[in-house]
């Protein structure tokens, strides 16, 4: 499994979206999120975006007030994951128009939907923005 989990966390450390590709109990999730968020939020802009944590590698990137954290296997390509994060943000930008924390809070389902279009079982399956968004736009139209 390439990607193990994707987290979106705000500056205060509150989780805004959590998607896991392996089963963890709620306690395990809470502990993991706590540790990772503490580790990553303490780092500054001049430091690199990769943190090793337990048997994961965390690749993170900050956009305005929101941190995107992706936990990957050790042999995953870090730069590709950074590009993936950027792609995710761009996709959300295109859909919501200048995406912000509130958009994700109020449209959590859509955010999950986009992620599901992009990633299955921890593998990135889709990297074209229009392909990712077309089902969502269709659904928006019909509903």
């Amino acid at each position, binding site marked *: *499994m*390439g990607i193990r989990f994707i987290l979106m966390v705000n500056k205060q450390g509150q*989780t*805004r*979206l*959590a*998607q896991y*590709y392996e*089963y963890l109990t*709620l306690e395990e*999730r*809470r502990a993991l999120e706590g540790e990772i968020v503490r580790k990553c939020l303490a*780092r*500054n802009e*001049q*430091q*690199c*975006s*990769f*943190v*090793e944590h337990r048997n994961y590698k965390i690749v993170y990137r900050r956009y305005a007030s929101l941190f995107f954290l992706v936990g990957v*296997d050790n*042999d995953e*390509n*870090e*730069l*590709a994951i*950074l*590009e993936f994060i950027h792609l995710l943000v761009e996709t959300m930008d295109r859909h919501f128009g200048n995406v912000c924390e509130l958009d994700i*809070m*109020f449209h*959590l*389902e859509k955010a*999950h939907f986009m992620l*599901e279009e992009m990633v*299955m*079982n*921890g*593998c*990135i*399956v*889709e*990297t*074209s923005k229009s*392909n990712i968004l077309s*089902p969502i736009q*269709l*659904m928006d139209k*019909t*509903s």
Partner: protein
Amino acid sequence: MAGSSIMETLFQRTLDDIIKGLRLQLIGESAFISKAMEEIRREIKSTDPHTKSTALQKLTYFNSVHGLDMSWAAFHVVEVIGSSRFAHKKIGYLAASQSFHDGTDVMLLITNQLRKDLTSTNEFEVSLALECLSRIATLDLARDLTPEIFTLLSSSKNLVRKKAIGVILRVFGVYPDAVRVCFKRLVENLESPDPQMVSATVGVFCELASKDPGSYLPLAPEFYKILVDSKNNWILIKVMKIFAKLVQLEPRLAKRVVEPICEHMARTGAKSLMFECVRTIVTSLAEYESAVKHAVVKIRELLIDDDPNLKYLGLQALSIVASKHLWAVLENKEVVIKSLSDADPNIKLESLRLVMAMVSDSNVSEISRVLVNYALKSDPEFCNEILGSILSTCGRNFYEKIIDFDWYVSLLGEMSRIPHCQKGEEVENQFIDIGMRVKDVRPELVRVARDLLIDPALLGNPFLNRILSAAAWVSGEYVEFSKNPFELMEALLQPRTSLLPPSIRAVYIHSAFKVLIFCLHSYFFQRKTIASSSLSSNDLAQGVSDSVSVRESPKGSGSATCEAPANELDGGFNPRIPSQLSKDIPTGNGDEMIVTHGQTSSFASLEKNSFTEDSISNLLNLIEMALGPLSVSHEIELQERARNILGFIELIKQEIPGSLDQGEGNFEREQLKASEVINVMRDAFSKELGPVSISAQERVPVPDGLMLNENLCDLEKICGDVQLPSTSSFSLGTPHSKEKIGVSLLNLQSKEESEPSTESTSLLAEHRKRHGLYYLSSEKNEISSTDYPPANEMKLQDDLHDDAEDLVKLTEQSLVPKKKPNHAKPRPVVVRLDEGDEVSIVAKKPDSKDDLLSGAVRDVLFGNEAIPTSSQRNPSDKSSSKRKGKEKVNIDLPSELKENLGDEEKPDLGNPSSRRSKHRTHGKERRHRSPGKNDEEREENVQKEKQKSSHRHGRHKARQRADGPLNVVAQAAVIPDFLL
């Protein structure tokens, strides 16, 4: 009822309301959530699907963002999934994929619903079901739904097909037999003209191959085509990951892929792809010099980039190269060393690792020196990282990098004095290990230990306790190298030792005992030689007394430099002078210890050692003073040891007083008893301790009739009883300090408690009996407050950058072609046991599920479909299938190479087989015959298809073919390329 349901619907709060309410926070978050949860519990039971699904939506939100439990609602999730409206279904599936897991008991209820949705005409419903299945599929679900997934794998709708490919990974994982049904279609998607499909399929294969690369070797031609043809960076990265795994199994594959990978590396503008190329080359293609050279050039680009991400990755890549191509690190050493002072701790760590990789026996001392200076200025965490890596690098493989042990031992002493040092345990181990293994370094070791022991400020630092314990042990064990045993005794008994934890104090007391025995023995030995020399050789005595006058002046200066106890020596000095000198004369009959003593210590130091009556009685008084209070200590270890030593002094004192007062005439007779006792003790301590092999325990034969594995549970019960009081006894005196014990300490204790069970052999037991003291579990929990100044103030050091330059210069030296530097003294012998000091690592076996999966994959790829599982295949089948798999690699690769590289003939150095070349020309002919690339591809695919689909028949034929040439080509099993 209907009325209430309408009311509920009308007044139900939506998810948006909930989020807004949460943001307003009128009543506090937890109160708000519990109120909302109450509503949800009520609403979710509603018969109205809209109310129900909205409630579930809210619950899912709370579950994923606030981490609330939603397993109780599993049945409602199933209900919502069954809804006919797409909007509701969507909510239900999201909830299911968020919350269901293998243990969810309602899982069986959704099989039919999933099947219905998978066969739906609405592609979005199908994709919802697939999404969900990819997250929650269990063995049952996968088995029941495999036919549907098989159909979807060739769906005409891209959205559906892509997701069907994605779900395959999970299905294969939980239900390996699905491979038999779906694998072929999956491979077909690999050759799809649609890059979307290829991307998804390659992703799946990348994951499959990372677990068991061997099974996917036959697909190498397909992957190769993608590697060469694809323009999509995502796909290329994944394909390269697959090849990184495959080439490790099939070296001939490396030759083919190294060129396209280098091409990608040179051409691409995307850093991610470039880095993947670099990583593939340095991990899997490290034998290809030119490729590695190109990769190192790229690494350098990363290293000098301002982006910390690229820098970090560059360092990481460099550390992969380091093991095989150290020159690459040396080429970039300036950057590496500059990174030691980077702002990012992760980058600092990586560069530290690289600096340690550069260490060789010629520059180890200089690099360590500079690193220790770095450590002095770093934050505690990084300081200890530095110290830890110096210790582990220098200690690796029996200190193979160390030539000058005197230097190393003094470095250890210096490291102990660094304020942040928390590596007490490692330093302790190395001190003792070096002491036992390297004979020549013992004098220096004792000197360093003395410097540590004598400094009262060090006693207050709990992190140094372990080091001090080692220093005390070393100076007791090798006391014969000490320049001044009296001073040593003072250090061991100084009042501030009360700050130490009892277990370490016990080591101190025991060492004091050893020192005492040494002093007494030397004293009596002296007197004996005097007596014998005065009796037997008058001439000699005459000569000696002549030289007394010569020695008069050095004696004065020597005593002036003496420490406190030595000052009192002056009184008893004169009459004993001859004994001092005569000590060197009768070397023939002297005992071994004295000989080494005479050789190693300088003349001036001998003078300080002068063991006179006064000094001995002072010594005895000192011990009695210091240890007297301890004989009533609450700590059993301390009490017992103190009493031992006091009792011994009592015994000696009864013998000595007469001799102390009386003249030399009757001295001999009265001393006899005392010296006999001392000789016995001396013998007990003088036997040398050697290192013990890790496997020593295994080599002890198990006695007949002893069942080691029987009744171990009983033993545990007994041991539990025994150990409980013994561990608590250490902390009896300091119950308050218990609170300060951190988690790490608890771990430490538990580790130590488990130790005794492993040390049950007679060898170790004997060793322990003699030097049981050293084996005491030591505790760090004694943190006493101290008003002493800290051990050492931070010294003002020159600027960091100076250090960096220093290090650059130093490593430059190591660039110079390696030649053994001419050291003043040769490397001392390091005792090492020939076998067994290395720990053998047991290869981890893949778990059964992976085994099943790979077995199934092999079966499909190699055509053994008739046999259900890999475990049931007989050996001959296995070998033939393996052979066939390799055949395929070789069938396709050369022809493809020609397709892609034009007419360029590649000499195949690995397999100079005549059959091969014949077939190659055949392949070429074929190419000329049908120059259309696509035509040939199709043709090949058809062939492959035939091979794969013709089950029993195909296998039979293949086996026949395989058996034929086996007789012709001798090493066919190794290089099975006969089908070319």
